[in-house]
């Protein structure tokens, strides 16, 4: 989108006419760059004010909803954070969530990439039907299927307790059921933008389809793998409905299930602890985002692929 900034015009004028008065230079700066910062700042303000409210609630020593302001005025304390670890099994929930979300997002990105490669690069009967059904199956109201999932896993728990209720592995399997879906579409779209000549020439040089996939395609789509991995991670760590049915032991709960229990009863009184938990829950996601940031920014196929 260099187009909006009028790059060639800017390049042509820099320093070319020294007599330009400051006013017009400033207004040109605003037209080309400044408005972008204005939009950015406004958007950041919109993004941040509810989070600021949560932060203020978390630091509020009274810990109730009704006493919380946007900016903490009644002093600051970390009581809510210590209370969170003393009164609940927050540490355990945190580890459970990290393990489940980490493994699930990694595995589902891999499964998704495999399928996207086939959908993008191969032609086979049922391809279009397959793609459409992936989209359709997502549209069934999931929470109604919970009754069925509960019955299925009651049997699974009887037969194989290791992957039954209250185990991370069972929940993981369940999440992998949703691995193919929107993310596959997203990846397929990006696979499609890579020129076919790349993998065809590799094939001509004697590469097998697996080598084309692992050696050529995967490195090229690393940015979109990172993005979908991030999306999967966030989706999993926030997932509540399934996890709530699945995990009933205090020790095996995830953050979403555990924290919901905190405010299910008395929200006003537990609000400070809840807010503290909300903030801590966000930390892994923010860190993962930092980790994959360079991929998102590095430009998808810049360099390797010329249109």
């Amino acid at each position, binding site marked *: 989108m260099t187009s909006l900034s009028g790059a060639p015009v800017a390049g042509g004028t820099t320093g070319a006419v020294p007599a330009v008065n400051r006013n017009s230079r400033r207004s040109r700066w605003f037209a080309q760059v400044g408005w972008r910062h204005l939009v950015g700042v406004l958007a950041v303000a919109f993004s941040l004010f509810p989070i600021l409210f949560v932060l203020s609630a978390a630091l509020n020593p009274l810990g109730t909803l009704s006493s919380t302001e946007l900016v903490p005025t009644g002093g600051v304390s970390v009581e809510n954070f210590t209370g969170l670890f003393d009164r609940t099994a927050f540490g355990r929930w945190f580890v459970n969530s990290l393990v489940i979300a980490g493994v699930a997002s990694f595995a589902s990105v891999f499964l998704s990439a*495999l399928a996207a490669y086939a959908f993008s690069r191969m032609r*086979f009967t049922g391809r279009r039907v397959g793609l459409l059904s992936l989209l359709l199956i997502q549209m069934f109201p999931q929470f109604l299927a919970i009754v069925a999932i509960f019955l299925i896993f009651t049997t699974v728990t009887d037969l194989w307790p290791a992957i039954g209720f209250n185990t991370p592995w069972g929940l993981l399997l369940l999440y992998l059921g949703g691995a193919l879906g929107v993310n596959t579409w997203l990846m397929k779209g990006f696979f499609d933008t890579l020129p076919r000549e790349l993998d065809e020439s590799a094939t001509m040089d004697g590469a097998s389809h697996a080598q084309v996939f692992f050696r050529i395609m995967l490195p090229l789509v690393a940015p979109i793998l990172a993005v979908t991995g991030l999306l999967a991670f966030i989706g999993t760590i926030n997932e509540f409905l399934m996890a709530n049915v699945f995990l009933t032991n205090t020790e095996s709960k995830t953050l*979403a299930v555990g924290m919901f229990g905190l405010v299910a009863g008395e*929200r006003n009184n537990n609000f400070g602890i809840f807010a503290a938990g909300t903030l801590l829950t966000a930390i892994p996601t923010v860190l993962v985002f930092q980790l994959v940031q360079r991929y998102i920014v590095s430009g998808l196929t810049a360099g390797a*692929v010329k249109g």
Partner: protein
Amino acid sequence: MSTSLSGPGSAKQAPGREPVGSGLPRTSRTARNHAPITATGLLVKVILLGLTAGIAIWAAFPLVEAERWIGLAVLAATTAGLFYLYLTRRHIPAKYLVPGTLFLIAFQVVPVLYTASTAFTNFGDGHRGSKDEAIVAIQTASVKQVPGSTQYPLSVATQGDPATGPLVFLVTDPQTGAVSVGDAQGLRQLDPGDVTVAPGGKVTAADGYTILNFGQASSRSKDITELVVPTSGGALRSSGLSRAYEGKAVRGYDAGCDCVRDSETGRTWTADEETGAFVAADGERLAQGWKVDVGLRNFARVLTDPAISGPFFGTLVWNFAFAIGSTGGTFLLGMFIALALHSPRMRGTNLYRILLILPYAMPSFAMLLVWRDMFNTDFGLINNLFGLGVDWFGHDWSARLAVILVQLWLGYPYMFLVATGALQAIPRELTEATLVDGASPWQSFRTVTLPLLLVALSPLLIASFAYNFNNFNAIHLTTEGGPFPADNPTAGATDLLITYTYRLAFGAQGAQFGLAAAVSLFIFTIVAVVSAVSFRRTRKQEEVYS
């Protein structure tokens, strides 16, 4: 969707129209098939197939033990299929599709099909199991203490957590001194070596069980009263916390008249196979029924029951407005900000990105609850901040505005993220070329950038629409469907079809999964049709662009 960006050579084909063979020349396919086998590839294949075999064998033992032969057959067939698929050189697409599809079928397709099949039954509270299970439940529930009932010393125990674990009764036979453990399935004798019995017959310790002390037991007295252990002559129930009696079932099933008879009052309830319940002559039904097929009756009820079909249309219109508003709003805002930040001259885009993405990083269910509190009339942040006294969730339009605003906040970082990704995938040369040709920035955006963005993002937009159409949490955790009109407490101003269904199906009358499944099939049809139509439209557009 096609290879629109990859240049003129491959852009001609329209993948998906027909089985397009021309995309991959025949030679290349054969070349792939005859590529040499590498040592690494072979090793990985052997390890993965070995793991598959190992998991299959591990999974097979419990199946054999439980004599579930159908499950075993499915397992064997799946494993054999996997071995065939990865050892043959044919079926290359399947090699890539099968891993994900297996999980998809097991954990998404099967549950959805199962749910859909319940739409044709009366599955729900009171209609959960088979007729035999209903009869057992009726009999055990009617157990009463009669003169001459055997009394047992009782200890209550559990194999799990004393506060939540499933309870069992440990009882000592007063004649033989044998200790048995009993739960809802029945009574089982324990090995005398595993238990410690106090004088008087009360069990004080048993291997594998935690005996509840008096405090723990009294806090769960309700569970203890409800636990009925079926025995050959009737059932065991507790009387107090330390004694149990073996009572007689007052109600029993009589196969001759296919009815349940009460031996005290002589009243009978005849089985009605149509509705899956025992019904008395005066129309009184027993609470325990069984699951029967009811054909299309659930669907007929959705269409004809005025309580369900009446507010349907208004809810449907708002449902569309909500889904389109949420998806369109987040997309426009996300794309606008992505465009604004996507410039080589921008400094600090990384910082903006980190801050902008924060709403997406926050746990959404928690933030929905926080937003709900921010809209609180009395001490909510919004009213405090702007000095207002608006009862946000009390009026139709302010409540609708509020939920869409919340969706906007929650959803736009995602759209911003994917739009940024898609923008970076568009080769700069394309937009630069339009500028060289003298196009204005707006023209260049409208004719080059936006179409390419839509190509990449339209499936996501459709998916987002479908998701928001059924966005249960967005309503349930904020307004709960309210405000409700005075004359109709079942359909509120912000109710989506899904929350409305939820209230009808799981609400005050108890769970009616069959009816809920029927309504959800209606909803599914609506969403699927809308998505399929818009999907076709975007496909047509794409062909124009490519």
